């Protein structure tokens, strides 16, 4: 049966097309308004200009925030991958008392609403007199990214071939050499995917960061959020064109390199 012959199939695909338009619409309109000649949202824009890009490059606060976001995201991702790999190895390769409890201890932050954790983290940072620094932000983001890294890497390790590791050990390789030469190459995809997720989650984190920031350590999404509350001129749209461009490149690379089935499974598992 060719597509189009079957009415149910046609209806389904028309519906899918509408949903995909719905998914793209707000992003497309942000791109249009970045080139609008007026500061307010009117459709169709009365004219086109690049004045919002000019104004964007005068916004020092946004650039400082972008740099902060980058530092925090790289740090949270790096620590998540290191600590997450070690923890996943222990959870998957060893049998020990309290393993299931420990798994729950690690994954619990996924259940807690992020804004609730943000409140707790702000009060904690205040008590420790670490409020307003990048370190408290990195730790807060780490709590959100680490559970992802542990669960994705555990799933990858379960799928990795254990007999290869045993063979290497029997042939006299030390545990460290075995990990480096045998285990690591097998979990490379898991590492890439969990690193990718950790970075995206940290980069786009508002609720967790919101109460932890002062002027000096604002992250990009938080700064954009405050900017939108002050004024809604298309500076944010101009900035978004760059962010969207990066996202599109990243998405194309991700879809091209990661097996769609893996991606699907990971997205299904990593809802939060």
């Amino acid at each position: 049966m060719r597509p189009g012959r079957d009415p149910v199939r046609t209806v389904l695909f028309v519906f899918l097309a509408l949903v995909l338009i719905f998914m793209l619409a707000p992003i497309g309109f942000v791109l249009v308004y970045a080139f609008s000649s007026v500061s307010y949202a009117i459709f169709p824009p009365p004219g086109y200009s690049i004045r919002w890009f000019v104004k964007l490059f005068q916004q020092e606060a946004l650039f400082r925030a972008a740099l902060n976001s980058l530092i925090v995201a790289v740090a949270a991702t790096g620590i998540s991958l290191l600590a997450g790999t070690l923890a996943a190895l222990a959870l998957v390769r060893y049998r020990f008392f309290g393993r299931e409890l420990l798994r729950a201890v690690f994954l619990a932050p996924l259940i807690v609403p992020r804004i609730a954790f943000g409140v707790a983290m702000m009060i904690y940072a205040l008590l420790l007199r670490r409020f307003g620094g990048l370190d408290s932000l990195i730790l807060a983001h780490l709590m959100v990214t680490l559970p992802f890294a542990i669960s994705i890497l555990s799933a990858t390790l379960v799928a990795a071939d254990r007999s290869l590791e045993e063979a290497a050990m029997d042939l006299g390789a030390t545990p460290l050499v075995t990990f480096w030469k045998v285990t690591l190459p097998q979990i490379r995809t898991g590492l890439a995917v969990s690193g990718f997720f950790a970075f995206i989650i940290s980069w786009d984190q508002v609720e967790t960061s919101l109460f932890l920031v002062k002027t000096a350590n604002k992250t990009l999404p938080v700064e954009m959020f405050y900017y939108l509350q002050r004024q809604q001129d298309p500076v944010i749209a101009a900035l978004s064109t760059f962010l969207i461009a990066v996202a599109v490149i990243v998405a194309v690379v991700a879809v091209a390199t990661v097996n769609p089935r893996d991606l699907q499974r990971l997205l299904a598992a990593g809802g939060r």
Partner: protein
Amino acid sequence: MARSEVLPAISRRGWRVAARRYAHLPLLAPSVVASIAVFWVCMAVLITISVYPFLPGPARFTWAAWQRFLGDPFYWSVVGVTLRLGAVVTVLSLLIGYPTAYAMSKIRRPGWALAAYLILFAPILVSVVVRTYGWLLLLSQTGAVNYVLRTLGLIQTPIPLIFNMTGIVIAMVHILLPFMVFPILSVVGQLTPDLKEAAQDLGANRWQTFRRVTLPLTLPGVVSGAQIVFTLTISAFVTPFLMGGGRVQILSGLIYRDMEAVNLGFAAVVALVLLVLAMAILAVSNQLVRRSYVRAEVSGA
């Protein structure tokens, strides 16, 4: 002579056995330390601060913040609005997401399938703030949606689509739809055609096949998608706050308001109420799933 050669060998082996038995401890240490010292202590701090508010003034034990929340019908109505928002967004996401996942699994050309994936998946990479801003632009009084509706003659005056519940729901469904589609897609993809063929051979029509075969088999995906969407909706802040324009009050907005006012004790209470709601919903839905499986097994036997 022989003895002194054997002994180090044994002790070395003993050391290696011990190293193997306790090798997981150093592996776990960084994550355990980080998780307890940050997350779990944070949770303890949150509970403590809700009864020991230290700002303003010195800390002393009081139920005042809890009494204020639990005793005021306004806060209960905010809980009600939050749960209703969660329910509406979840149901709409399901009604849109299920056929979307089903249609995506039916795409035959790999190129088209990839494009559909990309369009559904890429928005997750764009900041929530940007996507919400896009909806503000689209749905404003002078925005594209009102323009199209007016040009088509469907409405005379622009209808308010932002700064109310409608705007929040539209933007939330957009943001959470991928989280509904992917779990469903991962179970729809595992369906084998033979069960459907068997049902049709036994005389079931399309609707009956869907209702009795496809739907029950895809229920786990539906449930996990619904859980994710519901819990993310009730705890979302940015989108409801910007789309609601301060006119729709939900729990996350209350938290923000009280944090801005440095009302930490009360903010902690609202945060804990939100946490309890999220956990209760997960527990109840897990229970429902387990029971429905048991029932299915019983009726199948």
